[in-house]
């Protein structure tokens, strides 16, 4: 397993797409800085205001770029044919997928946590003691939300990997991730109450506030799940998609 892991880690590091994805994800910090400067000048003119927190507003950038990274880890092998070369060197397909999952999981967790914390701290430093709405709580208050967000991004990247293994096409897997992240939760919002809250509570983006024990939104209210259950549902997403991906990898001819 250690041998396969070191190979997968080298595969991950030795292609440009990895760095493009990290670069895109890291844009979040930059956008957060620009945003905070902008709302700070507004606040200097008008006094206090209620601006959105950059680590929430620019979250889709982080989610999508790291999900694409997870998808590409396997679909780039299918589009280039490299998967056949890989499976000749590692005929145990489960071990190959597991190694990929470990690399994607660990790397995304570290990257997402760093980028979120960096976005958070730079924006608070720039805001200084202005009252911008998002900077009126302490790091201790916000930490559960930040960590839950990082965890959800990690789960999403692993979902990307699982879907990539099942679908084998980059475009197909990315579209599925987008559907899961943005389209389906949007649809659930418009179900008749109380079903909107019950169904929406189960979707990835809404699990984060429930884990951090916060409100979902004015429309959806407090959510449906206690923190531990929300965490369990969050972990179920990558688990289920990876099992589906593993089955496809195992059963189908390469």
């Amino acid at each position, binding site marked *: 397993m250690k*041998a396969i892991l070191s190979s997968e880690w*080298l595969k991950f590091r030795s292609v440009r797409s990895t760095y493009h994805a990290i670069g895109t994800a890291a844009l979040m910090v930059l956008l957060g800085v620009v945003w905070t400067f902008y709302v700070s000048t507004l606040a200097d003119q008008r006094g206090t205001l209620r601006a959105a927190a950059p680590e929430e507003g620019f979250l889709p950038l982080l989610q999508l770029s790291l999900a694409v990274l997870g998808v590409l880890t396997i679909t780039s092998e299918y589009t280039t044919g490299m998967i056949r070369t*890989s499976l*000749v*060197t590692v005929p145990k397909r489960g071990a190959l997928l597991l190694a990929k999952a470990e690399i994607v999981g660990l790397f995304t967790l570290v990257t997402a946590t760093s980028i979120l914390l960096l976005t958070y701290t730079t924006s608070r430093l720039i805001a200084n003691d202005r009252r911008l709405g998002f900077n009126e709580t302490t790091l201790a208050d916000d930490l559960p939300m930040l960590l839950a967000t990082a965890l959800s991004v990690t789960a999403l990247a692993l979902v990307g990997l699982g879907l990539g293994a099942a679908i084998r096409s980059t475009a197909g897997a990315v579209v599925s991730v987008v559907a899961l992240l943005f389209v389906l939760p949007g649809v659930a919002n418009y179900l008749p109450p109380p079903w909107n809250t019950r169904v929406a509570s189960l979707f990835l983006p809404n699990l984060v506030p429930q884990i951090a024990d916060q409100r979902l939104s004015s429309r959806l209210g407090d959510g449906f799940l206690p923190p531990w259950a929300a965490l369990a549902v969050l972990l179920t997403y990558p688990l289920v998609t990876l099992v589906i991906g593993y089955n496809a990898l195992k059963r189908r*001819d390469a």
Partner: protein
Amino acid sequence: MVRRAGGPASRILYRVIELLHLTKRYGDTLAVDDLSFKVEPGHVTGFLGPNGAGKSTTMRLILGLDAPTSGRALVNGRRYASLTKPMREVGALLDAGAVHGGRSAYHHLLCLALTNDIGPARVAEVLELVGLSGVARKRVGGFSLGMKQRLGIASALLGDPGVLMFDEPVNGLDPDGVRWIRGLMRSLAAEGRTVLLSSHLMSEMALTAECIVIVGRGKLVAEATVAELTARYPSLEEAYLALTAESVQYGAAR
């Protein structure tokens, strides 16, 4: 048969590829139909057949990339997928294009090598052997077909295996490269290895192989030595055309 000095006799005895009633069906098409033959060490075995005869499918079945519908393909007496360090027992070049174009030749080979606990020193060695040392740090995407073939041969040789399979390795090589492959195949066989080589170049095959296996429409058509075939027919090409006349599926009108 030449035995390598110092090697355990049992390992040499087991350097065989063995097909037992191997059958592969894709939907309505029988790609491989009850195919049984054995490839022995010490000489190059040529694997011939018209387009679509099932040569590549047979090799994919041997490597566990595709699952047989029935029958078995064994390497050294075992299923390929059950080998723990497969690269040390079997080396294969199926499709020279099955590489990620964004990776350098060196990184590509190292990714494969690491999975089987093969170090960077051996990677440098095989790069030297196939003549790609000078472009080792260049991206594979920019390689010509001939260079990709050399890279594929390098990956097959990484584990110094006793069994080797090459699917059309001569495609895209310059005359110099064709002669190099011929010498390489013959010397690998002379070292006591088992070499299965498919090609459509009959003149080349006549110079390289000692034994010939011909398949047509997934079935075994003939299994003979080159000497036997050239004794009965004017040339290997004539022998091939006469034997496969019945099983050409995609021929031009004559």
